[in-house]
């Protein structure tokens, strides 16, 4: 079984974002770029499955659609343990475009299990995984919180309202992962960092695809009204305020 982990390159999750050019562009000054947290966890789970030895996982690759500026993120994925990487050399602002590129990669390289995150922490698109599956005409399972391989079959736990379901589908398939898929992201060890330098990054040129969305402007969330403090000795006053001012109690 060949696993592909799709990784997106996002600002570190503690970044306080700012915008330039009349609030139409992200100000990338000083931003620390990281692997999207979900993708880091997907990669961790994929490597656990490969390390297990009984799962039949032969290789774990990563794919990224982005310009050369995101190579450090790809190298990091290689340092964590991915066997090889593919980069599609294109700007990645539109999910439909990105998914179409990844579909080309999967068609050429023939992966059995493709992992995507439930959302990128930057544009919160929640799009690429499902789109990729539809481009390929293969099943997708979303809200995946656990993934095992038993007798060559992918066994998935997904979240549903009020609980969980254990499901299977034939491969190839796209699993769109969320909380639970792995506990802590695996960290690159010194040896991994050294070997990452020599691991291959295959370069694909993009196929032409229509751009469907355009981000034209950004707003920062409105600051909330200043906090009203209630004396700790008299919490009852808080309940009274909630009753009279918010009318929710």
């Amino acid at each position, binding site marked *: 079984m060949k696993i592909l982990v799709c990784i997106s390159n996002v600002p570190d999750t503690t970044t306080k974002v700012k915008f330039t050019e009349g609030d139409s562009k992200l100000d990338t000054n000083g931003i620390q770029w990281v692997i999207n947290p979900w993708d880091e966890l997907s990669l961790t789970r994929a490597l656990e499955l490969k390390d297990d030895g009984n799962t039949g996982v032969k290789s774990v690759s990563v794919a990224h659609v982005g310009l050369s500026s995101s190579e450090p993120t790809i190298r990091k994925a290689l340092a964590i343990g991915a066997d090889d990487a593919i980069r599609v050399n294109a700007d990645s602002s539109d999910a439909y475009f990105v998914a179409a590129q990844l579909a080309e990669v999967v068609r050429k390289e023939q992966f059995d299990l493709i992992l995507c995150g439930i959302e990128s922490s930057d544009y919160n698109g929640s799009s690429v995984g*499902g789109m990729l599956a539809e481009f390929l005409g293969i099943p997708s399972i979303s809200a995946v919180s656990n993934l095992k391989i038993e007798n060559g079959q992918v066994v998935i736990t997904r979240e549903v309202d009020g609980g969980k379901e254990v499901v299977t589908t034939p491969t190839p398939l796209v699993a769109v992962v969320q909380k639970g898929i792995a*506990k802590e992201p695996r960290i690159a060890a010194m040896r991994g960092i050294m070997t990452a330098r020599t691991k291959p990054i295959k370069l694909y040129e993009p196929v032409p695809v229509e751009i469907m969305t*355009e981000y034209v402007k950004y707003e920062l969330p409105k600051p909330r009204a200043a906090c009203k403090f209630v004396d700790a000795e008299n919490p009852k006053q808080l309940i009274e305020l909630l009753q009279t001012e918010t009318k929710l109690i």
Partner: protein
Amino acid sequence: MSVLVYTENWDGKFKKLSFELVSYATRVAEMLNTSCIALSIGNVDDAELKKLGSYGAQKILSVNSDNLKVFDTQNYTEAIAQVAKNNDAKVVVISNNNVGKAVAPRLSVKLKAALAAGVNGLPLSTNPFTVRKRAFSGGAIAHVVLKTDVKIVTLPQNSVDVTETPVNAEVEKISISLPEPKTVVKDVQKQAGKLLLTDAEIVVSGGRGMKSPDNWGPLVELAELLGGATACSRPVSDEGWRPSEEHTGQTGKIIAPNLYIAVGISGATQHIAGVSGSKYIVAINNDKSAPIFEVAQYGIVGDAQKVLPKLVEAVREIKGK
């Protein structure tokens, strides 16, 4: 031409979320000078289906098929796509919950329709079709232009008002031929009857400042008295102090209750990313400089173990319990 809204049901019943979606789709239809059509999948009786008319749906289509019993993303996508095509839908409205996140992107490819997930309010304009959406995990709001003829928007729960605009809706049963689902369900583990965190209007949430899993009694009691649900920060669920379904934040559940009471939670950006849509935030924390107070409208600087029992007492008094 029409605006199509997919209204999910839970064991044959709609809930507030379904009515929010129809209310919203009706407003969008007005902006486009067209009508709102609701699609229901599964076994829902006529009386329940008719309810969608109270919020403006002029036509209610109901599809029921054995091949839609299991939530299979391919079959659901196919069903919604066929209905969208047959009714010349220009905008498709879906929830941004687990089901919507699974289906909307597939539908986008199938209909060649631009998708905006987690949309905030009505479109700013219909030509070009521009919506505001969540970006940077709550750190910003983006204005996105959807450039295709057909558009898909997904809406977070609790983000729009339910508005009654009763119309005499016609209910129509339609049939769609679909293949056997490829998804096979082996096991289901569901807790029935519990208020879902994502449905709760009031949420009381605890963080590491609660100090120990044994201290949760008064917090749970407060939530129960207020008719709300309980939540927690990530370290609390990681430690196993509370079940993982309660984990709220960027990597947990994203919720938007009317009232979010954060107890012993510092207010890290990743936590706030999951609760910033709340109408009111209340913080209880013994550190006056905790960042949670920057996003809270009401606060108490104090020890959670001392404050919580007093809050419980005050609510009991008010509610006469």
